């Protein structure tokens, strides 16, 4: 589904990713772990198409397409979803309007008919239960005045409605208490299917107690320095990131 080859990217003159190689197949869950500044979030943002980042080398192929050629909205229309580490507040736009616009734009791009507000309301109601959110959130402005936990749950709710083929969760666990973490993880697990893939970007192992990954990759200094099965996460938790970073890693980029 996703093939990343020797990916280099950064902001301005600062190179953050220094040759990422990663292959993700349908049905798989990959965890990308690493210390602060290792490039985890940059990888997530680059895959979602944030124009602030510049790709300087390498390639990313998604379902046979050159992903780097596509604008962010086209990537989303093709089934890529990024759950933001810091979801953006949009005062004045209701969650309902925002999400219905997104839903309809994606349907339109895929040759499907748009849904009207009432149909949409039916559709979202059960997804709200999935993340234990109240219907009243739909009329509130996007993420405005939401607690940290509400923002993260809103990301998973959006994911549940938009049903992406490749979901990238960027530090979705950070700032969550254990109950919220469980809700978020359950939401993600219910959406797992043999056709979909998930990349879970996280600093801590604890989310992986709830979302069991097939593969764990350790990112340090812009490169994947170690890959393994789910047990690698536990080993990391025990030994700390110094274990994989090694003496050459130096200051984080």
């Amino acid at each position, binding site marked *: 589904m996703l093939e990343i080859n020797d990916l280099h990217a950064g902001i301005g003159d600062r190179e953050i990713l220094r040759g990422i190689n990663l292959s993700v197949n349908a049905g798989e869950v990959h965890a990308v772990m690493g210390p602060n500044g290792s490039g985890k979030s940059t990888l997530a943002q680059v895959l*979602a*198409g*944030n*124009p*602030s980042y510049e790709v300087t080398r390498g390639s990313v192929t998604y379902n046979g397409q050159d992903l780097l050629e596509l*604008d*962010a*909205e086209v*990537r*989303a*229309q093709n089934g890529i*979803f*990024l759950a*933001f580490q810091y*979801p*953006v507040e*949009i*005062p*004045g*736009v209701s969650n309902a*309007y*925002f*999400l219905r*616009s*997104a839903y309809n*734009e*994606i349907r339109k*791009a895929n040759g499907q008919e748009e849904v009207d507000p009432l149909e949409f309301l039916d559709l979202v109601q059960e997804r709200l239960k999935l993340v234990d959110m109240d219907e009243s959130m739909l009329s509130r*402005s996007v993420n405005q005045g939401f607690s940290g936990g509400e923002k993260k749950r809103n990301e998973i709710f*959006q994911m549940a409605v*938009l049903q992406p083929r490749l979901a990238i969760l960027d530090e979705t666990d950070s700032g969550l208490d254990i109950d919220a973490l469980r809700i978020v993880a359950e939401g993600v697990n219910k959406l797992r299917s043999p056709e979909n893939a998930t990349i879970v970007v996280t600093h801590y192992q604890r989310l992986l107690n709830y979302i069991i990954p097939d593969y764990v990759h350790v990112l340090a200094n812009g490169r994947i320095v170690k890959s393994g099965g789910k047990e690698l996460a536990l080993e990391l938790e025990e030994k700390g990131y110094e274990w994989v970073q090694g003496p050459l890693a130096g200051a984080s980029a």
Partner: protein
Amino acid sequence: MGAGPTGGSIGLSDIATRESVRENGVTSKRDAAGGKGIAAPQRVPDSIEAYRQDFARQPKAPEWLQKLRSDAMARFEALGFPTTKNEDWHFTSVAPIVERPFSLPRAPEASGDRRETGRRRSDAANSIGIKESDLARFTFGEESWHTVVFIDGVLSSKLSSTGELGAGVRVLSVADAIDADGALVQRYMGTVAKFEQHAFTALNTAFISDGAFIEIGNDVVVEQPIHLLFISSGDSISHPRNLIVAGRHARASVVESYVSLRENEYFTNAVTEIVVGEGAHIDHYKLQRESESAFHVGTVQVRQERNSQLHSFSFAVGGELARTNVYTSLEGDAATCTLNGLYLTDGTQHIDNQTSIEHIAPNCPSHELYKGVLDGRSHGVFNGKVYVHPEAQKTDGKQSNNNLLLSPNARVDTKPQLEIFADDVKCTHGATVGRLDELAMFYLNSRGIGPETARMLLTYAFAADVIETIELEPLKAELERLVLARFTGSLSTH
């Protein structure tokens, strides 16, 4: 505070200076006294020459009005057009207005009787083919509203539908009010909107002949909004003059719309005076939707008595060069006012908003929120003044102006001003100029929403909170539609 690539002094050299116009004023008096056509010096702008001719041609009015007009004309000539040296016009050059000799629409045959002339002009306007159906897009689909239509500044009774106003309310044209009960109009006309320091108000006063006169008696509540619809049909000047007098505990909503049926170049120079009596509550909406080639200067000037409330909303989207002034004076204890506004500019438009709140009496809260969305090579201006007089203790003033620049070539100058001469007050003010949030854009894009829709959504969201303050639902819905149309480009905003 300013933003944008160019300064505000374009065309400065084209404007007559204050000194030169004052000189012209002298010439004019001599001209009038001698009754001979003394050739005007070259420095007299064609526009002033055109106004003189219009002025001389005006049908006779009652003596008090005749005097008011003459005083105002003399004052206009003495003041001349404001230049950018004038602090109130620092960011707005009126050179294009100075250069163009706009005249009043000509009546088919000049007549000694003012009313007859009015009728003829009005009928003439109707005969050029304006039908009720042409007005539908300006009337919010609300047939129950009391709608008064003016074509080129003159009442069209044929197109107006005031309906049942109820006891204690009078809505009539200023022309008819002068005839029917000159005393009441005389008592208030010119007492709120003073022209000594305001050239355009002086010019308007020199041509007082028609507009709306609304009188709301004590304790009377006007259930349905009163809509004053000013339509420009050609390329002339109009000087609409409105007078609204709300008695003790009266309540009404008044909407003033300035529109055109075609993309003509014309000049509207309007003045509205409002007296809000003790405990009265007036909601006033001004919608400036002129042709994009038009010129518009409009002043809404209000006097508020004890415990009165004013809610003003000023929407400006039309005009090549447009200026709206909303001035209120809180003269009675615990009077409150809310002045809100929204301006949307594009192309080469220049839209200026000036507000002034005079806190004269104590215990008065005032709130102000103006928002601007500027695109293309347009230029927006906001100047909001709050004066707190020494007696106005316990004033609670809050003023903000927020601007969104959609294009690198758009420009806005914003100048909130606070002058406080009392010591026990709470006043805040602030202004912002920003661009669309890139992170928010990416967030929307990452959800499959393309840049155009995302831009429209974020722009709408920026304007939404000030539109939300509109209490008339049909008006709110129409403004929402206009704002969305403006940013999708799919519908005309006029």
